[in-house]
């Protein structure tokens, strides 16, 4: 059976995951907080399962084929949240399996939607684990696996593509995929380190700086406080957060190229990065003006501070809140949630359609319009001085089709389960795009805890679908995939 070699590999990823659990374990062992037992047990179970999976199937180990890649990704993203949920379920009294799994998935997909309230009262290690999972999941555990395990051979690049975001993934940065994955992780870790030091300097404790660093650079949005970043009410901390959220919304690949060429030119020349920055700046200007005019803000500076923070937070799919922006006139919160659908760059840790797909679609639309006037014109879609092949355009258009269908389908499912329109629609958008908070009953001041089990599972599925950019998940549900 073709599944066993895949199980062997997943086993090794589970072992890796168990080792990563050592981070919260170290916290709990040094602090002796209430979750000590839970973490010891969870780590033991995870490690045991991982070892069992990889040892029992040792005989079946072989080079990964492209076909196996999707199974591996599916299986990984199904299993690891379960292991990740284990300590939460054990440590937080009264947390159901559904909610624990939702919470772990939300962390692992860097969404930031939570079912927990009373975060400040949770054991420190639980919060550390929620945030640290987000850090790993933000870039992707399989990318990490490719980087540090001599794991996957040629099939590695196939896997790599499913977790990295965006439509144009064929350009390798280095000849070997493992080196590429490693380079990207190094860039990610360096940004994270800078972010942590900046938070610390801006006034957070070391623990908070670590946790918020994890959720900022992964564009996730978990916090160790119910008030999120509003807890500090500090413009300086907000400024640090805005800066690092903005930085993380740009492709990590770009940073690597900038680093290699020792100049910022690759960043500035990139059409996508310019569009990303332009959209954010324009939105901040638009919404802050709008809020001063119609939103009841007397102080323009306060309006600017709130707007800048929330536009960047939601548009980059992070989802921190310092203020209940759901109380703004509907145009403003809806605008920023829609920004979250597409603003981040491909190759970043953000969710959604990605700016590059949006640009390609706009160019395609423009192309069609020119073609109506000049029937014999030849105007391929050009991005960054290179023609984009029709093959890529088709896949982008197909992606958009599926994206739209997914949004509508899941919204209908939530409506069916009894939610109101605003809540259902924004919950789906917030989950599929890995933003976190929506509006209505899942607004920034509330959380997903009130949803029924069915609704929670729908949102869980939405998060995984969105994180893996639909295709990698949906392909598993096609009969053709399983036919031999």
């Amino acid at each position: 059976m073709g599944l066993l070699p895949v199980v062997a590999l997943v086993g090794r990823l589970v072992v890796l995951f168990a080792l990563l659990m050592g981070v919260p374990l170290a916290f709990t062992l040094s602090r002796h907080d209430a979750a000590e037992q839970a973490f010891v047990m969870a780590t033991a179970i995870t490690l045991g399962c991982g070892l069992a999976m990889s040892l029992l199937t040792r005989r079946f180990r072989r080079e990964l084929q492209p076909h196996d890649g999707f199974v591996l990704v599916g299986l990984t993203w199904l299993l690891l949240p379960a292991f990740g949920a284990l300590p939460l379920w054990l440590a937080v009294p009264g947390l159901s399996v559904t909610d624990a799994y939702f919470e772990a998935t939300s962390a692992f997909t860097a969404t930031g939607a939570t079912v927990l309230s009373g975060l400040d009262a949770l054991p420190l290690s639980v919060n550390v684990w929620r945030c640290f999972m987000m850090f790993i999941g933000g870039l992707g555990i399989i990318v990490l696996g490719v980087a540090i395990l001599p794991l996957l051979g040629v099939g590695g690049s196939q896997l790599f593509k499913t977790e990295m975001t965006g439509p144009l993934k064929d350009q390798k940065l280095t000849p070997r995929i493992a080196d590429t994955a490693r380079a990207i992780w190094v860039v990610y870790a360096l940004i994270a380190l800078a972010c942590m030091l900046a938070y610390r300097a801006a006034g957070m404790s070391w623990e908070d700086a670590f946790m918020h660093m994890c959720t900022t650079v992964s564009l996730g949005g978990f916090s160790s406080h119910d008030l999120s970043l509003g807890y500090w009410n500090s413009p300086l901390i907000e400024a640090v957060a805005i800066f690092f959220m903005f930085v993380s919304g740009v492709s990590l690949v770009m940073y690597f190229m900038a680093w290699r060429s020792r100049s910022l030119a690759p960043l500035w020349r990139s059409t996508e990065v310019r569009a990303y920055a332009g959209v954010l700046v324009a939105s901040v200007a638009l919404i802050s003006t709008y809020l001063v005019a119609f939103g009841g803000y007397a102080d323009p500076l306060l309006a600017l501070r709130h707007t800048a923070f929330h536009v960047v937070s939601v548009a980059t799919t992070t989802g921190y809140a310092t203020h209940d922006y759901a109380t703004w006139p509907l145009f403003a919160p809806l605008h920023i949630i829609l920004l979250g659908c597409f603003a981040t760059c491909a190759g970043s840790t953000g969710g959604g359609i990605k700016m590059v797909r949006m640009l390609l679609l706009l160019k395609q639309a423009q192309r069609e319009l020119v073609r109506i006037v000049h029937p014999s014109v030849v105007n391929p879609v050009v991005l960054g001085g290179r023609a984009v092949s029709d093959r890529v355009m088709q896949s982008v258009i197909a992606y958009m089709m599926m994206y739209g269908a997914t949004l509508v389908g899941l919204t209908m499912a939530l409506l069916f389960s009894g939610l109101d329109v605003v809540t259902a629609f924004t919950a789906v958008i917030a989950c599929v795009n890995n933003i976190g908070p929506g509006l209505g009953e899942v607004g920034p001041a509330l959380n997903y805890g009130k949803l029924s089990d069915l609704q929670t599972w729908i949102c869980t599925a939405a998060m995984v679908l969105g994180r893996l950019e639909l295709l990698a998940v949906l392909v598993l549900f096609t009969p053709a995939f399983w036919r031999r």
Partner: protein
Amino acid sequence: MKILILGAGRVGESVAESLVSEKNDITVIDSDPDRLHMLQDRLDLRGVVGNGIQPSVLRDAGIEDADMIIACAPLDETNLVVCKLAHDVFNVPTRIARVRSPEFVNGSPLLDRNGFAVDQVICPEQSVTAYIRKLVQYPEALQVLEFADGLVSLIAVRAVEGSPLVRHSLAEIPALVPGADMRIVAIYRLDKALRNLAGDTRIETGDEVFVLAPTEHIRTVLGALAKVDRPVKRLMIAGGGKVGLRLAREIHAQYQLKLIEPLRARCEYLATELPSTVLVLQGDATDEDLLGDENVDEMDMFLALTSDDEDNIMSCLLAKRMGARRVLAVINRRSYADLVQGSQIDIAIAPSHAVIGELLAYVRRGDVAAVHSLRRGAAEALEGIVRGDRKTSRMAGLPVSELALPKGAQVGAIVRGMHRPDGSEAGSDAKPQVIIAHGDTVIEPNDHVVVFVPSKRMVREVEKLFQVSATFLF
């Protein structure tokens, strides 16, 4: 001069043709014996069959005592390697290479003595592009050429009925066009040069007039001899080859461009290379429906730049009849070019002649800064530098009227103060001064003198004027 030419292609052939007529010893190397035979039958030169990057073949062709090698094989690589060989192994003093790649430009360290050792890079496509670009800028002119780093221009223009100078004599020019210093150096009527231009010579409708003037006065000159139209805004280019692409790339910011190219793959390449404001159309430029759909009648200029002479002529005729304001065709065959210029087709360009000038500057004796070949090689304008002093130079200290110029040759303009006597650039305090020559203008040492030579036969005599007599050396 002993000159070795590598490659008997279109460029090699026209280079050979124009150099052989000046009593140079030419040897052409090419791997195609048939082509060499043809060339040998037509021109007085020697052909050597073989691969030019082999030292033995080069030795066969007499490279050891050659004064100059011109490498114009189809591949850049070949030309670069041959120049390197010529420098390192055979010590050829002057090495010229045709290089298409825009990454090897004159002055780049890649081309110095430790690099490929190329003295001068020629790129016919670039020369033709520059030529056409001038014509787009000054649509009334037939040709605009620059001398003295662009300070002086030679303008060829067809006199149009009703313009201020037509039916007037040359003596009346200062009164009719005050403020613009200019000198008419030649008038061609019905393709024959008028001899003995004098104050009472009258300009007639249809004359092809060559005028030297400071570059900033080009517009005034054109206004005096032709009807000044509204400036060019909309351009249609037929043929997206190397010249079409280069031209579009250079001018797309100032003009609205439509580019027609028949090959799908090439179209896609063009659309990728050019910004989206340039409309790349796939189709045949001789297709009436396509031209109609794309509003050729609204075009200020239609440029046919394909490599096919017949297509260029036909598409230009078609565009003209459908209402394009001005049409320009690139025509490789000289007979065709002579045939159509001035008919329905406003301007015919022979690409091979656009590049010859750069080479001629190296072949000329004396200190020649620039040469331009005119009227498809029949005439020439050259810019020489007066060296030596009043004793050793044949020009310095004499008024223009007393120069020993051959009959018909004209000194048109003098640029003073461009370089110091030692050849270094003049300081910023001494701005170069353009003097439009009159009979009594006295030439001084280190002047740049622009001379119009109506026939190739006289070039030798003009060259001699710029040479310093031997005593200068002692």
